[in-house]
């Protein structure tokens, strides 16, 4: 017990007690052709080292926009986002992103080249070291056999695995995942969730995972940020124990559902 406390204090000292990623009062807006839309309103949260931090909310809660702001593709109107205490101003390989869309892989490069390309373009690895590291991470997602295939010959699940391998290979401070499994069929999605958790077990990378599926949030995350829609505001921040506690997970799912749908009238009265 004492040992653990000592260890805890030590890690806090090492990290300066700071969270890895912090968002403080972040308001985000973007323009469409006709409107200026407020995507999130004064959202604050902290992500710690090795967190599996999940942002969950219905469509229109600005969760993807929030992720893009963390990626450095959008600037907040109000509030700040810091990574390791430093203000985020532009995109960078320390915040590698995995997208929902399958077209995030460069179709003119093979699986291996896609990963190597990210490593060399970022300037973090060169030549042979980059190629070897790429193959290591391709092996981690079980795609060694397909290293020389072009993306269009792969299934959706395999493409997402390549994107995850590419993201992890760069060794980002935090891996940003924007509904990475949303376009997959249910069976593949389940399998991918297990694989992702296994990868996390092995390397304990920090990830920020965005989803609209409450079940996925509870299953994948250890800490869940619940956003309400139009515009996105923090409704709750909860801890999940995931698969180690099935009953707790079920309760947590119900809790998040009631948080999100509390303001709505109960739908289809008398039918359930």
């Amino acid at each position, binding site marked *: 017990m004492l040992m653990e406390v000592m260890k805890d204090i030590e890690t806090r000292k090492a990290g300066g007690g700071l969270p890895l990623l912090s968002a403080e009062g972040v308001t985000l807006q973007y323009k469409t052709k006709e409107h200026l839309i407020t995507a999130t309103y004064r959202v604050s949260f902290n992500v710690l080292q090795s967190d599996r931090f999940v942002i969950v909310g219905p469509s229109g809660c600005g969760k993807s926009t929030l992720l893009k702001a963390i990626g450095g593709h959008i600037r907040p109107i109000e509030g700040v986002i810091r990574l390791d205490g430093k203000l985020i101003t532009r995109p960078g390989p320390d915040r590698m992103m995995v997208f929902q869309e399958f077209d995030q892989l460069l179709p*003119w490069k093979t699986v291996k080249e896609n990963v190597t390309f990210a490593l060399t373009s970022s*300037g973090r690895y060169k030549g042979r070291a980059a190629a070897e590291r790429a193959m290591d991470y391709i092996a981690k997602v079980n795609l060694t056999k397909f290293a020389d295939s072009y993306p269009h010959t792969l299934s959706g699940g395999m493409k997402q695995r390549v994107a995850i391998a590419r993201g992890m290979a760069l060794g980002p401070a935090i891996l940003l995942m924007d509904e990475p499994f949303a376009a997959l069929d249910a069976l593949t999605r389940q399998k991918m969730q297990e694989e992702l958790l296994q990868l996390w077990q092995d390397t304990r990378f920090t990830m920020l995972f965005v989803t609209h599926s409450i079940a996925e949030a509870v299953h994948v995350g250890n800490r869940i940020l619940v956003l309400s829609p139009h515009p996105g505001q923090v409704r709750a921040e909860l801890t999940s124990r995931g698969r180690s506690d099935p009953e707790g997970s079920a309760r947590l799912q119900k809790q998040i559902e009631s948080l999100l749908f509390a303001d709505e009238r109960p739908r289809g009265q008398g039918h359930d």
Partner: protein
Amino acid sequence: MTDAVSAYRADVVYEVQTEGFGVVAKPLTLWQRLYGSGFLRKAVVVVILATTWQFYAWRLGNPLIVPTFLETVGAYVDQLLGGPLLARALSSLQVLLMGYAVGVVLAAALTSLAIATTPGRDLLELLTAILTPLPAIALLPLALIWFGLGTGSYVFVLVHSVLWPVALNTYAGFRAVSPTLRMVGHTVGLGGLGFIAKILIPAAFPHILTGMKLGWAFAWRTLVAAELVFGVSSSGSAGLGWYIYENKNMLEIANVFAGLFMVTVIGLLIEGIIFRKIEQLTVRRWGMQT
């Protein structure tokens, strides 16, 4: 009648057969395979057309108007091996390549400017809108005043016919690159020219290739027409268009046909061999075009 609520139906689970389905894959007959070959079908059409031509010209019996098919082929082979046809074709191609190369380089510069800056974009959009409908051949009289009778004038009109379709298609291709790919490029640290070279150009390659093919077709037609109208260049090397014109004047109608034939053959070779090869090695291989 029983319905879904009142009826009782037991659950059933079946074993699935693994063999003994009878025919699974049956080879096609020889006729089916021959008919399935597009090349063979088209070859038959060509033979029918050539026979019709031969028969018509033979019945007409006037080689000054229409020589027979065999006479034309004979003239073609003759002129190609012993006559000036090959030299004329090469001379045309040389001028064409110069104009094409300059046009493509200018298109690249203009499009890069257009995606980098807003005034560049306005410039490109305006110029393409104004100049695309202008036939290159219509500029030739002006070009002759500016650059004199010679290669310079031809290159000028060729650049005009290549530049706009290539620039327009490339620009459209750049704009169609998905936001996801752009974000990937920015995230891994690419910017400026690196971003254009490593993300935008390959991602827009199907569009770019379409522009290049269009530019090539425009340029080839423009060149042959220009040579036909304005003839021999001052450097002494005359092209295919001039060859056709000359032979018409000398009433060597079979040679005129041979010249036209050469224009078509070169067009087909570039389109069907060079561009197709590029497509196979790039966009088809990458699954960006089927």
